[in-house]
């Protein structure tokens, strides 16, 4: 569901397709509830090996991230530092991954492409960017590490199922209509870049 608090739009898991309907690229949202770190090998296991993901991410969120975790007593863990990793590495798997798992919110760094756009549009999901380099902010928004699965993958790749509170800011980079913020921006950046190359080139004719 969606909650508005102090002007913040907060997605609370479980999130439905309808909750995402009026969220567009460039919007800033926050997330409360279930967020599971999930990156390279976990995607491969689900998509290529057809394994069932051992944490239920349906209508919940995943985070492309490899955290630093401190083990506590009684099989408990503390989140020390967690930041997004480049989402593009998961692009190859993301359509199938969303289809298989029913995940609604994908959080990571940088843009993704057609496979993810298609998944977001067909199944009603979004991709968001957590501003990178802010690992301490992200870690302090994790209230508790609830579960850890596929621990054989090592600390960065384990599925760390977290309960988060107002996790964000999350900037929507692909919305559920399939629009892609970075791809639209890139057109603009490239146009301006070409103009600047031309402009600067006129002033650097140092070889005469």
């Amino acid at each position, binding site marked *: 569901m969606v909650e508005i608090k102090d002007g913040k739009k907060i997605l609370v898991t479980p999130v439905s397709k309808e909750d995402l309907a009026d969220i567009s690229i*460039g919007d*800033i949202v926050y997330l409360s509830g279930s967020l599971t770190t999930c990156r390279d090998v976990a995607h491969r296991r689900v998509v290529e090996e057809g394994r069932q993901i051992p944490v239920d991410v349906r209508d919940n969120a995943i985070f492309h991230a*490899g*955290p*630093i975790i401190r083990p506590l007593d009684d099989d408990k863990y503390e989140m*020390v*530092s*967690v*930041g997004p990793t*480049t989402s*593009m590495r998961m692009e190859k798997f993301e359509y199938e991954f969303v289809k298989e798992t029913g995940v609604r919110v994908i959080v990571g*760094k*940088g*843009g993704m492409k057609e496979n993810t756009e298609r998944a977001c549009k067909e199944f009603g999901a979004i991709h968001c*960017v957590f*501003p*990178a*380099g*802010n*690992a*301490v*902010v992200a*870690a*302090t928004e994790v209230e508790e590490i609830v579960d850890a699965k596929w621990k054989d993958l090592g600390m960065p790749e384990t599925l760390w199922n977290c309960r988060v509170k107002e996790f964000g*800011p999350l*900037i929507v980079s692909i919305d559920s209509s399939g629009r892609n*913020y*970075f791809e639209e*921006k*890139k057109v*603009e*950046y*490239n146009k*301006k*870049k070409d*103009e*600047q*190359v031309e*402009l*600067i*080139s006129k*002033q*650097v*004719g*140092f*070889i005469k």
Partner: protein
Amino acid sequence: MANEVQVEKMTDLMAKFIAHTAKKLPDDVIAKLQELRDKEDSPMTKVIYDTMFRNQELAVQLNRPSCQDTGVLQFWVKCGTGFPLINELEALLKESVVKATFEAPLRHNSVETFDEYNTGKNVGKGTPTVWWDIVPNSDECEIYTYMAGGGCTLPGNATVLMPGEGYEGVTKFVLDRMTTYGLNACPPLLVGVGVATSVETAALLSKKALMRPIGSHNDNEKAAKMEKLLEDGINAIGLGPQGMGGKYSVMGVNIENTARHPSAIGVAVNVGCWSHRRGHIIFDKYLNVTITSHSGVEL
């Protein structure tokens, strides 16, 4: 002071300084980020900059590395031939990285190539990187420290242009990199450019350029003009913080240069992310320390 005692002292000081640079950005970077933050006005850029500043405050408060990617450690040393620990320097720098890795803690970022395993100590064959400049008739040792994260290492590129391509070719080479890789390397970026005679000379200069303070200029008037042109040009692309759009893209552009072969222009570009974890520390022969990059440090 016996030699072992000195080695231990310098190792310890370097480990503490490295740990500090993982948690607090250098003064010039903080000042520039504040300036850029104040000049941006869209709600999205405000939210991103607020998050960045809150993160840096929390890192100091909670005594944690501000970014989870604490990089591969790289040192550029300018060591006097009369510095008492010149023989031990490279080994003690490696030891100081191991020490900082456990004390800070830093992430284990050294993967042996070909054997492809993580050493678990954050050091390996040739890491930390150490570049040497030997300074004759000096008994001091000046060290630049740098945490080269994965995200900002990725845009690095070098090539050799034909002279016919000229500085126009250099411009295109640098700007093309900004819109393909730069936007994912955590802008606002510090851009280092090397203009020299071959790939490796240009490449090394492009990294050394990142050690120069923000706002400093190349001594050569034309090179300084080109720094300004590139800075304004990349800003005009409007990458904004995190590459999500804004009025500015970079914290600065630093160019370093050497002479070149008449038939070649070596050019390289290297970028530092907004979390530009660079340090600068000077040891005298008694191991008294001067830190120029960070104010208020107690080691």
